Structure formats: C-alpha cells, structure tokens
C-alpha cells in the first residue's frame, strides 16, 4: 500500500492551541493500523506537494494571520481543487476563518480568505472562551475548547458541523458550530480536537485513503480511553 501523506499547513505560525495533537492523532491512528504515513510540514513560501491525501491547518495568533492569509491566496486553487475532488481537510479556529470568504479583523481590516467555505468572520469585542459540546448528525457528540473573538456566519448555502449544546460555536447567536463542505471541515474546537473525537479522525482517514485511490477498510481500534476522556470533558464547567 502507498503511504498516506498529510500536509500540515503553517505549523510554525498556526499551531498555538495544541494543534500538534491533531496531526499526532491522525498519525498514530494510522500507525496502530500499520498504515504507512507521512506528515509534510508546509510553511509560508513553500509548496504543498501534489500527491497529498489530507490537509490540516490550525489556529495561530492574530498577528501571524496576515502573512498566512497572503500565502494561502497563492495556494488557493490547489486547495480548492483538492477539496472539489473529494480530498479531506480539517481546519481549526484561525485556519477555519481564513478558508472562508473574508475575515474582518480589528487590526488589519478585511483579510481576504480563499472562499472554500461559504462563511464570513468578523472580530468582535467578546472573546468566546470555554469548554464546548456539540451534537453532530454525522459524528455524534463532539467536545473541545473554544477561544476566539471572531464570529462566523454562513453566507448562502452551508452545512454546519453540528449544533451547540454548551458554549458558543460559530457566533453567540445561532447555536451552530463549524462547517462541512464535501470532505472539508472547519471548526472552532481545539483541545486538541481529534484525539477526543476519534470518529472525526477516522472519517478523515477514510476519505484520505479513498482519495489516494486505494481501498482499505479501517480496522476498529479500542477507543475506550478516548470515549471516557470525551465524557469527562463534556461535564467540565
């Protein structure tokens, strides 16, 4: 079997909220099933390899986002083509915002996004901080921690990742959290997101394998600890 390649976009500038846990979860869940894999770090000014099977982008400090936003525009058509052809993508927090139409920031005005998701985001004066629990049709209960002052809204047609049961989600008003478009996910959940939500991790891996042109049924793993951690986290204030 050909190895599965993950592109981790901007690990130096966009991984402040424990984002390492997301790529680690993907890697280990492949290692435990003896699926060969590689995480390719792609920084500003570097090319995303053509043969990647999954894209991950995390959250960063506001200050670093302008540089990243400009670089993303150069990669926009490659990322869009990848997603249109069924490639899986996970974006968290700042990364999620930059994949929308635009982000209006306090310090830099309107920052152009790559328009992958039908969302717009605006800086607000309320910081949305705390444990968050989401109910998702596709994945069941999801838990995480959110910490953002940008509020995100859908423009036109868009499907949320889930409905907020506790916390804020996309914005303080509509109780929706994240977005799914084809096999691309955007979310405000870190914590880290994938280790405690292994159904999402495995779903991303299934799409990655399919996208690589291979067929393989993912072996079930023992997720008892993952599920206990999620249960405990969902009860924290």
């Amino acid at each position, binding site marked *: 079997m050909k190895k599965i390649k993950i592109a981790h976009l901007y690990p*130096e*500038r966009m*991984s*402040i*909220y*424990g*984002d*390492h*846990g997301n790529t*680690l*979860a993907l890697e*280990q869940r492949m290692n435990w099933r003896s699926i060969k894999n590689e995480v390719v770090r792609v920084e500003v000014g570097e090319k995303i390899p053509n043969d990647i099977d999954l894209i991950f982008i995390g959250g960063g*400090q*506001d*200050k*670093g986002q*302008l*540089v990243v936003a400009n670089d993303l525009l150069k990669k926009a058509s490659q990322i869009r083509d990848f997603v249109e052809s069924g490639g899986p993508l996970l974006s968290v927090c700042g990364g999620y915002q930059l994949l929308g139409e635009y982000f209006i920031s306090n310090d830099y005005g309107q920052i152009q996004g790559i328009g992958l998701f039908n969302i717009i985001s605006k800086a607000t004066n309320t*910081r949305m*901080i*705390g*444990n968050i629990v989401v109910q998702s049709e596709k994945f069941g209960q999801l838990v995480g*921690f959110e*910490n953002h002052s940008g509020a995100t809204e859908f423009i036109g047609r868009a499907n949320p990742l889930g409905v907020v049961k506790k916390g804020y989600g996309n914005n303080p008003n509509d109780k929706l959290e994240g977005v799914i478009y084809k096999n691309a996910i955007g979310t405000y959940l*870190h*914590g*880290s997101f994938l*280790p*405690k939500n292994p159904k999402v991790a495995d779903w991303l891996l299934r799409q990655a394998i399919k996208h690589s042109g291979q067929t393989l049924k993912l072996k079930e793993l023992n997720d008892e*600890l*993952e599920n*206990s*951690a999620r249960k*405990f*986290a969902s009860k*924290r*204030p």
Partner: protein
Amino acid sequence: MRSLLAILAAKAASKLNRVSGSGGSSFPGLVAKKIDKDILEKLVLNNFPRGIIVVTGTNGKTTTSKLIANMLDEAGITYVHNRTGSNMEQGLISSLTDSVDISSKISAEVGLFEVDEAFMPKVCRAIKPDTIVVTNLFRDQLDRYGELDKIARSFRSLFEDLPGANLVLNADDPLVASLGFNLENERKATYFGVANYNGPKLKHDYTADSIFDPFTQEKLHYTDRYFSHIGRYRGKRGGFTRPKLDFVAEDVKQKGIENIKFVVNNSTKVIKLDMPGLFNVYNSVAAFATAKIALEISDKDIIFALNESSAAFGRSETLSYKGRELLLLLIKNPTGLNQVIQSYLLKEKDRLLVFVINDNYADGRDISWLWDAAFEDLSDYKGKILVGGSRAYDMALRLKYAGIKGVSIEPDESKLLAKIEMNSSKRSKVFMLPTYTAMLSMRSKIVSEDEKAKEYWQ
C-alpha cells in the same frame, strides 16, 4: 483618612486569617481595596527609598524574585516581598498592608514584587517601579492571558509610560528582547542571556512561538535554539536582532537532578545552584543583572546568595510521604513542563511518576497545552506512571498518543495517594507533577498525612 481605615481593616483581616487559618493571602488586599480603591498607589508613595523592583514573565517569576530576595538578604538591604506568590493586585496590597504602620510608613528600603503578566499595566501604573524584569514570554493559559502579542503590546505601552524605569530583559527571547528595541530618547534596556549551551535538548519541542521578527513577521535565523524559542538568533541587517548581552551566563554544566553550574560575565568564580535546569540559569542571571543595576550589590554577595539558594514553594520541593521521598514539580504550561521533563524526568527514568492535572480557573480551563508538551521524549521512561486530577483522562490520552503504555488512572486525590503508596516502596523516590490547584491540595494532603504519621510514632 480613608487610606488609614483601609490599612487598619486589612491588618484586622490579616490577623483574622492567621487565627482562623483561612481566607487566603489576597483577602486583606481585597478588604483594603474595597475601602480605598487607590490604596496600592498610596501605600508605596514616599516609601521604599532604594526603589521598587517588579519581576514578571511567563515562567520563573517566583524563583527569580526569590533569588533577588536572597541577594538583598546577603547585602543587608531590607525589603518587602510578596513571597507567597500572590502576584495579582490584591496579593500585592496584602503584602504592603502587612508591613505598613498607621502613619503609612514602611521601614523597608526596597519593594520587591512578582507580578502576574495580566496585572502588569494596572499594578505598575499604580506603584511606578524603578526596575522591571521580564523573564520570558511563552504560550500560557491562553484562556486567561490571551495571545503573547497582546501581552507584549501592553508591556510596550507601559514601558513608554514609565520612561525612568530600568528594563531588565531576556535577550534570548525575541519577543521579550524586542520590548527594549528602539526605545525613545536613547533609553537602553539591560539584557541578560546565555552565551552557549551544550547540554541535552528535547527531541519533540513544539512550543516555539516567537521565532519571527516581532516588527516584520519575517523568520529569524537561529544559530542555536536551546529550548522553545530561547536561543541565539539574528534578524535582518539594520532591523531587529538579538541584542548584545550585558549579563551573560556560560559554561553551563548540569549534574543529575542535583545542581547546575555556570559562570557570569567571565568571572573566575563558578556559581553552583542547588536546582537543575537551564531555565534556572536564566532566573539566576536575571536576578544577577537586577541586583547589579538596581542596587549595586557586590558580585561577592550575589554569588554567595546564588550558591545558598534553594527552589521556591512547590516549584521543586521535596516532601516526605509515608517514607517515600516525593519531589513536587509544579507544571503550568508546555514550556515549563518541557523543562521539567528535560531537567528531571529524563535524568531519573526509574522513579514512580505521578501527573495531577486539574482544570480549575487558576490552572486554566483549557488543557490543550498538554498536547504541545514533549511527552514523546518520555517514550523510554521506565517507572510506573499514575495520572490524577479532574483531567486525568485527558492526561492518560495524551500519554497513549505519545506511545506510552501501562498508565494507571485515578481522578480522586485520596485514592491517588493510596495508589502512590501501593506502587512505590519505602525510601523510594517519586516525581509528582501537579498543576497549580492540584499542587496546593496534594501538598496539604501529603503534609497533614505525614504529620499524623509522625505524631503517631512520637
């Protein structure tokens, strides 16, 4: 008049605290501030003839101020110090109301305060320090402090508002160093740092944040990164770069977990600190620089004080528990935890290892930071590992993804203590790594158990 009332009320509250053993060290400060909201400013007015020193930064505040206090002791300079680590506004007020007499006079010559990063602008605008020390800025409890840049920005504007203050800054931390870059009116900061470090480094350090020029966002060029974003770096010609060191530590040699040796400014006298870790070399050289420029304490007194120093409360403290020697190592953020892994855990891999992870407000509600710490470096740890606290399952999960097997989970503190006893023999040595609130509660449980045992035998 109002301030006198505030002082008296705080003193009464403090006495009540001591009698009842409750209330906490910030309670008198709370009382005083309720009566007079400007009490902090009034308390320092016309006091401290030899100046006020403030120590801030993510890690090392408590240890650095303790080292400075030892130097003041050695030089025979009297001081007031918020020694219990109560580093927010009310804690500071409490330490002052304790020392002030009813005519608003404090007999100490120096005020020495560690101040929480988030409270710096408010506290410093009130007490107007003569010297400000910044140890470092790392990612830390982002739910409480916000992002590093936000803190740095608040510091920069504060420093502009205090044009007379000495700035003692870590040159090896780009974001901290940049706070003294291009100051107005040819004002110069004092820089400390480490010239070179050949000791061990972690293989899985994910905590570097400030590896970019803070003004242009271009990547800095590191010739050596010691840990996180701390090291020797340079920027573009004509722009921001690592400043010249005024106080420089070198020849760093660590032996086991016992001590670390180094020299400062080419001195022939080797300093031997009775605590390990490169981070403690940074704390020492920061204290050295401060004692020198703020108070002109002699090298002899400074070096003597450093050689006699031990770690601060709960930071690296040995407790005895049912015949076991338990080393308590506080963890608060990934960079600090990495330093503990590197300086302690990797040196004695056979010990029983206990993590106690809470997510109370004072710990930070967000435990994402566990995923950024270098647990992968512990893959060949040989001792048994126990995890406890309100986030025991998250901790266990982190270790699972680091490939570490056989971890035992016990969220309940009393049961965890029983498990420690079960999994260790008498006279064995144990590492315990608690978050802040877990440190306080485990410490008091252990100390009271140990006293009970002693009374029984007496």
